[in-house]
Each structure stands twice: as structure tokens, then as C-alpha cells.
């Protein structure tokens, strides 16, 4: 499973992307955020306020309660500021 980070999420975690093996109990985007927060201080700092973290699965926005089964790539990023 490929994880991609953008903007200050990327800066705080310290890598732009990484491959991870997710345990079976990580079913939703919210589960993924909790699992990542337990991986270390950089993750905890990046994801300390989960409600401001947006999640996209296979390049489509999803809600934190939605399942991530079947994801090829999951991206985590702050609220967008384009336009």
C-alpha cells in the first residue's frame, strides 16, 4: 500500500511517500490515521489534529469513516488552498 503526503503533512512526517503493510484491523481512513499516529513522534506531530487531515483513496476524496479496502494509493494532506 502506497502512502503519499502533501504540504505540511509531508514536511512534518519527513517523507513524500512510503510503502506500508497495513494490519487487517485498519479498515477505515480514521483507523489509518490512528495507526500512523502510533508510528512515532513525526507522525504524531503531523496528524495530531485528525479532523484537519484530508484523505484521498485512489485519488478521490473520502470521509474518515469510509473503508480503505482496495486502495492502491492513499494520500494524506491538509485542507486545500488552491484556486
Amino acid at each position, binding site marked *: 500500500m502506497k502512502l503519499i503526503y*502533501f*504540504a505540511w503533512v509531508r514536511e512534518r512526517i519527513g517523507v513524500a511517500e512510503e510503502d506500508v503493510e497495513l494490519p487487517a484491523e485498519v479498515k477505515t481512513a480514521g483507523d489509518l490515521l490512528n495507526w500512523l499516529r502510533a508510528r512515532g513522534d513525526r507522525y504524531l506531530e503531523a496528524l495530531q489534529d485528525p479532523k484537519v487531515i484530508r484523505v484521498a483513496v485512489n485519488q478521490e476524496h473520502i470521509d474518515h469513516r469510509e473503508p480503505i479496502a482496495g486502495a492502491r494509493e492513499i494520500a494524506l*494532506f*491538509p485542507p486545500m488552498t*488552491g*484556486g
Partner: protein
Amino acid sequence: MSDACVIHVKVQAEAFDTAAEIEVAKAAGRQVGAVVTFSGVCRDESGRLAALELEHYPGMAEAEIGRIATEAAGRWPVTSLTVIHRHGKLSPGEDIVLVVAASAHRQAAFDAASFLMDFLKTNAPFWKKEHPADGSSGAWVEAKADDDDAASRW
């Protein structure tokens, strides 16, 4: 309503030619009576900024803008919709984004362009980082609650 709508989406570092894009929009339908454009321009925030840097999510940026444009084409009788969004480092005065909406009807062109901009702000995966003129290290621009409000009115 969307069957005749031509949608163009480009995500690029290069500058674009607004006049050429208007001509493309006019040529896309024989019944074009109204063309509305929106240009988003990099400001210097009263001299505070030397540049803005735009990060984006390649692939998703194009896909998400395409989804927003398809939604707009389904809501209003537009003949063409064009969105060009730049990324990389942009100086004050440079264009960041262009939306062009063409229609037989002026209100449809205005509404489609305004809708596209509201959802680009909240849903297109771009992030702006400030490069201050004083050489200090810049901050990421924070999303505005106003922008969520603007999108939620549609």
C-alpha cells in the same frame, strides 16, 4: 444539459494565454453568446510576499478538477468549460488559475464559473506556501472557513 459541453483541464507550471483560451471557448459552440472568465492572480499582500509556491497532487489534481467541471456541466447549459491551474513558484502579478465558461446564456456562464472556482478552492488538491519578501522561511496558507461556506451554498 452536459451532452454538448467541451471540458478542458490543464495542470501546468507554465503561464497560459487567457485570450487564446477565450477564443477556444467561443469556437466550441455555434450558439455561444456569453463567455465568463475568472483569473486568480498572485498578490504580494502589501509587499509582504516575494512569491507563492503551489504544491499539487499530480494525477488527482486533473481528475478532481475534471469531476468538478463535469458536475458544473450537468447543472448549467454550458457549451464549454476550461480550467487551467498552475503549480510551482509564482511571483506577484502572475496568474495562478483560469476558468472559462461559455454558454448561450449569461447567467449560466456566470454561475458555472463561480461554482467551479468555489469547488476548486475547497476540493482541488493544491496547497500554497508563502515565500516572504524578507527572506524568512514561509508558512503554508491556511484554508478559510469562508471558502467552505462559499462551496456549501451550491
